[in-house]
């Protein structure tokens, strides 16, 4: 049983009803931790509920109307339909954006974990400069997309950009590609830049998690005859799975923020190769004044993300940590 359940049951049992009379029950109910802990969880719940779920619900209602232009919609049941959702089905822009969004949520998250892990392993094996290099990798995390978007526009410049300059210097001219221009590379380039920005976060959590693995496991593997790579691959990395899950959740949140990066670099029109639902929603609503359609995209995005996160929640629930 997890520690938390123990805490729960202690606190719960500590003053749950023991008296059997009605009066006593009410009294002890009022004294129960459920009631007494209310001041702790109720205000944040209300605030979060109002803004987040109120907003989501409102957004959903808008998606049922025909709201466009700059005339406020009439919220009447008779106006409600799912037209915007059917429209989505036939919209090639939506298909492209949905595909890219899923790719970003899944592939970017995985890559980010991978890079974070590699960085963590490297930093963990340093004898010196650990803390300074750790800070270096974490620095981009502090910056806003408005800034990093511009940086990467330069980095990717096929002529004067750092990336291609580097490849040319290394004699790998074949790899000096048109990163943002070539539609088939664009999304990958976006992910790479995002990894640069968020890899440090993954690294820092992985580092923390690596520290919890007893030194004996490395030594046992060594004595067992495993080399450096086998030790990590077979012994260490599998033990990081729960850290990976929790990093993945946060990284997925970040991947939704790719909106700001794309918006900085491509405006509201990254093209089908890199369009994502967040950008499309903004474009549709705030450039084309098609609020209802934008709202519908927003609802789909939220539900879709939730579906991707559900396995995580279930995993947490199974482990009794929800």
């Amino acid at each position: 049983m997890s520690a938390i359940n123990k805490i729960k049951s202690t606190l719960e049992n500590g003053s749950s009803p023991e008296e059997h009379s009605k009066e006593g029950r009410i009294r002890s109910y009022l004294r129960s931790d459920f009631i007494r802990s209310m001041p702790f969880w109720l205000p944040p719940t209300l605030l979060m509920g109002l803004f987040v779920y109120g907003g989501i619900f409102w957004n959903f209602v808008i998606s049922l109307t025909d709201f466009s232009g700059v005339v406020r919609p009439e919220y009447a049941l008779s106006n409600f339909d799912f037209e915007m959702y059917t429209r989505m089905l036939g919209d090639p822009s939506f298909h492209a954006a949905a595909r890219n969004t899923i790719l970003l949520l899944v592939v970017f998250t995985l890559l980010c974990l991978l890079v974070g892990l590699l960085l963590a392993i490297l930093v963990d094996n340093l004898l010196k400069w650990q803390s300074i290099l750790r800070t270096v990798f974490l620095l981009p995390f502090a910056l806003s997309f408005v800034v990093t978007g511009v940086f990467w526009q330069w980095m990717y410049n096929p002529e004067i950009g750092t990336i291609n300059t580097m490849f040319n210097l290394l004699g790998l001219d074949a790899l000096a590609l048109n990163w943002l221009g070539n539609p088939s590379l664009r999304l990958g380039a976006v992910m790479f830049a995002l990894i640069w920005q968020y890899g440090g976060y993954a690294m820092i959590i992985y580092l923390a998690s690596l520290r919890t693995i007893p030194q004996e496991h490395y030594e046992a593997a060594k004595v067992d005859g495993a080399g450096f790579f086998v030790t990590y691959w077979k012994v260490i990395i599998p033990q990081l799975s729960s850290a990976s899950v929790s990093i993945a959740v946060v990284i997925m949140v970040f991947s939704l923020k790719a909106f700001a990066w794309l918006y900085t670099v491509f405006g509201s029109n990254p093209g089908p190769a890199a369009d994502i639902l967040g950008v499309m929603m903004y474009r549709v609503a705030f450039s084309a004044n098609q609020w209802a359609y934008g709202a519908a995209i927003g609802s789909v995005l939220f539900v879709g993300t939730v579906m991707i996160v559900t396995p995580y929640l279930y995993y947490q629930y199974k482990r009794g940590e929800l």
Partner: protein
Amino acid sequence: MANLTFDEVTKKFRDGNSEIVAVEELSMEINDGEFLVIVGPSGCGKTTSLRMVAGLETITEGDLRIEGRSIKGRSPQERNAAMVFQSYALYPHMSVRENMSFGLKQSTDLSSDEIRKRVDEIGDVLDIPELLDRKPDDLSGGQQQRVALGRAIVRDPDVFLMDEPLSNLDAKLRADMRTELQRLQEELGVTTIYVTHDQTEAMTMSDRIAIMNNGKLQQIGTPMECYYEPNNIFVGGFIGEPSMNFINCSRDAQTLSTDDFDYEISESTAMELESATNIVLGIRPEDVVVVPEPTEPNDIAVEVDVVEPFGKENNLYLIPRDRESNEAVIGTVNGRTRVESGDTVGMRFPEEHIHLFDGNSGVALRHPVAEQEELTPFVG
């Protein structure tokens, strides 16, 4: 299976600017198939010695040889030593079978089938065939311990290295595992170095005990040698539970005097002491004879301060009468003995059972008369 030689092995750690000498000029020979226990207080360098054999620490000076061939500089993989860690260090994400197979996969060319067969065999030996598909987290402490052993055994190593493998178990289980480990080692006949700070483990399990203190070897010998003929005060105090009683005396010819009493020794004993005047008298609690009242010349009148009952025996904390001293002499009496805190009794140190040490160097000057008794019933 091999013999192992420590040749003046020294290990220094750099700690900032200072140097820590963890092991100092350790020399000993461990015979093929022997079960050697290294014992000593915390920080005395036991683990470090073991890890040098495993190849997890480098050797600063001296040499280590297996079957006469130096293993200095070889990587752990090349040493064919198997290690059991105090924390077990089982890989939590692998099943028991995978844990046990891992070393074989990494360091041998055996086919999966052979590995499977071997693991099954060892599983049988250790009586854990039904656990093979579980994860370590689903096992009890004792079962984990067994798996950790299995992981070492399965590799059929030249040397077993065990670092306090039983210290995470509770008393009962520890006693069981002790016997089992011993039986297994005998069966397999693999040269074994076993590290512990628990002298009971050292006594009961080992062929020979190596006692270390402050990085230095104090004594190496069979349990009985170490118990009955400790080289010095340290060994005398460390081996045996409860500890040997030590009494500081000044000697004048055949008289050992303390503030509380005088103790006359025989001439032959006195001769063994040569010219030493600063003497520590050592006597084990079970050798202290408690009598209803002092009758013989050397008997001392004492008060029973505390009675610690263990069932079969009681430990009496005896304080010389009319003394404020808190330094009690512990004497063991039969568990059925009617004696209570506050009683006044006599305490006797039979001369044939006393140890005498040089008070300055701590070196043993005289051991009890070596007497191996014929079978006599135990009168606890």
